[in-house]
């Protein structure tokens, strides 16, 4: 999902940068206002955690080569403001040091990876939590389903970005079919892992999970 340099046109990359900067400025202000001193190290740890998990050299995937995107997990643990900040830090470091995604497409990547989980995944999570049975399992299930929706939304958004300003010379149909096909699988994997991690955390340390039933955000 990390878009490389030259894959989308300059106007789309610029539009992505504007949207990402605006969205992240809001996140930074809100997160900064609500940030307690204790949250900062936890956010840093979450960032380190995602950085390690997403490093291509460390095989944590289960028979698939799609690595954890982690956006919905981040907002489930840290809330809709601090979650995108953490994913942004990770994505920027990856773009600078591991060549995952181009610097010129950074804005588009941040919209897809950091803002979509907060803008789509988090409301879906809160909505599902109200519908599903109360308790830890219901909350974990809501987080998993929100992760699925969020990854699919990012894949649809990516296809739309390509439709507006694709520069790869591939027909839109081909990109749409392959992206949505691959990311349908990634979404399922992401959903299962997110749900299981949230379930496990709720059982052991519910105070670390922002969307825990005990804590109404």
């Amino acid at each position: 999902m990390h878009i490389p340099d030259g894959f989308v046109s300059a106007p789309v990359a610029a539009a992505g940068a504007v949207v990402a900067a605006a969205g992240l400025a809001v996140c930074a202000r809100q997160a900064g206002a609500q940030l307690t001193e204790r949250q900062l190290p936890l956010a840093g740890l979450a960032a380190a955690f995602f950085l390690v998990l997403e490093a291509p050299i460390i095989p944590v995937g289960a028979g698939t080569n799609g690595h954890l995107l982690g956006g919905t997990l981040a907002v489930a643990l840290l809330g809709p403001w601090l979650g995108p900040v953490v994913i942004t830090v990770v994505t920027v470091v990856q773009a600078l040091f591991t060549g995952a995604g181009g610097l010129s497409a950074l804005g588009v990547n941040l919209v897809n990876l950091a803002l979509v989980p907060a803008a789509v995944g988090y409301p879906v999570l809160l909505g599902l939590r109200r519908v599903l049975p109360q308790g830890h399992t219901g909350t974990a299930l809501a987080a998993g389903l929100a992760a699925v929706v969020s990854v699919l939304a990012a894949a649809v958004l990516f296809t739309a970005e390509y439709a507006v300003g694709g520069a790869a010379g591939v027909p839109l149909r081909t990109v749409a079919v392959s992206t949505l096909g691959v990311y349908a699988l990634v979404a399922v994997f992401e959903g299962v892992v997110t749900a299981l991690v949230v379930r496990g955390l709720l059982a052991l340390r519910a105070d670390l999970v922002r969307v825990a039933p005990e804590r109404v955000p």
Partner: protein
Amino acid sequence: MSSLHDPGAELLIPADTAVHRLAPQCKVAATALFVLAVAGTPRGSYWPYLWYLLILGVIAALAALPPLTLLRRLVVEVPFLLFVLALPVVGAPPELTVLGVGLSEPGLHAAATIALKATFGLLATGILAATTPLPEIITGLERLRVPRVFTAVAAFMVRYTEVVLGELARMRTARACRGGDPRWLWQVREVAGGLGTLVVRTFERGERVYLAMVSRGYTGVPPPALTGAAASRGAWTAALAVPLLAAVGTVLG
């Protein structure tokens, strides 16, 4: 100190050169602008890349970086290049016939352009990483007025990456000792269970590290020694000359 205590250190090629000594904020800004200039190269125009190569070659020589090492680090883009190879095959018409295989002409141009832009982006960030330790890059971003919540999270991330890697290594060793070797989709529960344990352990470790920091006088603000100093006008001029020169190629290309 082992390299684990210093993330990004395995990318650093230490030397005492003007490029290494340059203020990090100048280097970060110059790298970002250089990559943007490369990304703006029109499609179908190939000579500007020779110009970019010359610019990067001069900087690498100034920084005393071995060119082969920089080139070898490009292997991280191999999976991505395999994807690019597919573009001429699935691309739109008109088609060219090369060795009896019909290849899409726009697809070929797109593949070449994307591969070149990604390669030069990676070479530029590779030079940044080879001459600047990661903590200094974060300092540089802070000097470039990136909101403090981002740089604070990044600074903690740098410290904790080692903690997470160490814990992950111990857990993998323990799992291998118990005969665990999850690699298929139906073993996803084992992977997720391991991830959950890793989350809890690293969070708890992070809380202990935080308490230790508080007991040593941490008040929520990094010490002034970590916030860097302003760069001189000369440093900015030297650094920004690089993307400006690259932009000449972009405009003429």
